[in-house]
């Protein structure tokens, strides 16, 4: 089954709508420098680099080669992994696979995006089928809005229920110096913000962000020598389904996520995720995802998401805090976003999460979302897997 592997260091950049002070390579280097500092390593210790972004946002191709000026990949094996929105968690899973294979000992994994360099919605439209979907497709915004419309019709959840998720994440973001939007919002503010794609309002949605994240994976031979508390990968699960949006039927739950969750819980013997998992960082780019997808992973029954959210179960101090970082609703540099989930839960396990630290984290879940409703899940642990 491969070697055991763990995250031993993470680095994030400060995030803004436009990081006009840096170009892409400089932004990448900011994250890489912090990750090396966090792990107390130098670039000479690194034996390979894996990087990803959403190619069409910057119009940059072969990002593995293009980014060498910032990544430190000069005269090292480099490779790109780009899977749209799931890029960051694909990097988290792919990087783990490379170290678990025994072929790499200390691997640098980078996700980044300068979302400001093009129009996000326009760029996402170009990711869809050129003949079938581009005529009416309107990016992630509309793709998510139609999911919410179907879920609301089936379960009776309301915009107010969804707003409570935005309130949670935006409150949590105030504890995170790397978050983009660090200002609390109220239920009323969410419900009074402009409708951008029915039923979604501006404050239901993630921002567009410039930012980068890097993590360093190490193999079981060296992880504990470098890092006093590595964040070990327990298991991963990922599912891709369709590539045409119109083939996705029955969006009251996300097929790829329910299937990935079922696999992950079966592989790890987890029976009651809500009780057994200590903290979750979800790739949840809109408020309704905090209801629908929380249910789909089996944290509660279908249709019960709103009750759990209102009861504060997922707030800081709750039974299973979700998105202590402020999540994607507060910060969304898309190619980095999934990897930020991995970096955040790794720091939760290491006890380095500062003001957003959840006490006594042993098991932590990072998830990825992207494309035509694809899903990644990675379970990390304080304890070295058997």
């Amino acid at each position, binding site marked *: 089954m491969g070697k055991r592997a763990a995250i031993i260091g993470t680095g994030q950049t400060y995030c803004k709508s436009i990081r006009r002070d840096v170009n892409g390579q400089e932004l990448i280097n900011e994250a890489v420098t912090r990750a090396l500092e966090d792990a107390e390593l130098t670039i000479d210790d690194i034996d390979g680099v894996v990087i990803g972004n959403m190619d069409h946002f910057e119009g940059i191709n072969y990002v593995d080669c293009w980014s060498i000026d910032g990544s430190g990949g000069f005269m090292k094996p480099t490779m790109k992994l780009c899977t749209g929105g799931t890029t960051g968690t694909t990097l988290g899973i792919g990087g783990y696979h490379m170290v678990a294979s025994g072929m790499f000992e200390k691997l640098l994994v980078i996700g980044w995006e300068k979302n400001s360099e093009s*129009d996000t919605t326009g760029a996402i439209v170009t990711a869809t089928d050129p003949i079938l979907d581009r005529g009416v497709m309107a990016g992630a915004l509309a793709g998510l809005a139609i999911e919410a419309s179907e879920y609301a019709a089936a379960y009776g959840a309301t915009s107010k229920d969804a707003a409570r998720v935005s309130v949670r994440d935006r409150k949590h973001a105030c504890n995170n110096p790397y978050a983009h939007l660090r200002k609390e919002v109220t239920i009323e503010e969410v419900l009074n913000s402009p409708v951008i794609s029915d*039923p979604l309002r501006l404050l239901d949605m993630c921002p567009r962000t410039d930012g980068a994240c890097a993590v360093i994976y190490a193999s079981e031979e060296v992880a504990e020598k470098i890092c006093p508390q590595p964040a070990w990968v327990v298991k991963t699960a990922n599912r891709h389904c369709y590539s045409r949006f119109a083939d996705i039927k029955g969006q009251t739950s996300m097929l790829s996520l329910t299937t990935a969750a079922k696999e992950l819980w079966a592989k790890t013997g987890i029976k009651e995720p809500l009780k057994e998992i200590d903290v979750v960082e979800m790739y949840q780019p809109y408020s309704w995802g905090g209801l629908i997808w929380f249910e789909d992973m089996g944290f509660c029954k279908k249709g019960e998401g709103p009750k759990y959210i209102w009861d504060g179960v997922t707030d800081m101090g709750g039974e299973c805090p979700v998105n202590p970082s402020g999540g994607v609703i507060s910060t969304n540099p898309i190619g980095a976003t999934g990897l930020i989930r991995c970096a955040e839960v790794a720091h939760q396990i290491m006890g380095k999460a500062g003001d957003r630290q959840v006490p006594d984290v042993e098991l932590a879940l990072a998830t990825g979302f992207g494309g035509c409703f694809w899903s990644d899940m990675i379970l990390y642990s304080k304890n070295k897997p058997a």
Partner: protein
Amino acid sequence: MSKENEQEIELLTVHSRTDVEQVFRYSAGRYLNRFLVEMRDNARIMGVKCPKCGIVYAPPKEICDPCYAEMTEPVEVGPEGTIRNFTILRAPFVDPETGQAKPVPYAFGNVELDGAGSLIQNFLLTDDDSKIKVGARVKIEFHEERTGNMRDIKGFRLID
């Protein structure tokens, strides 16, 4: 570079050229060819049926994803159907296909045409947005002039 220097230097963004266009030519492929030609010449929607699970895909494609089975039996679907999900897009953005601003607001959704098992995405046409609901019935409308393109479909008109 020191912080002081950064504050002194004007921060520039360099724009790519916008006065040129790069046109892509996509092969429709065997399955979409028939679909587009039928739509252009006969104003009807032809799907294709999976020999294993029986689902009719419209628009058609070669492989049923869950079954990984080749589909060969053409099936006409519609022209009426049911809205499965929808939104009314209000946020402005530039259509990368045309370079023009999208005419927001516009309603669009995924419709299950009668006889089909997959959905088809297009504009929803009505004088009264409040009638757009999950489960509402619609009928497909084509443009008079058709060229063998998804834009031959005007949209789905709500019917009572």
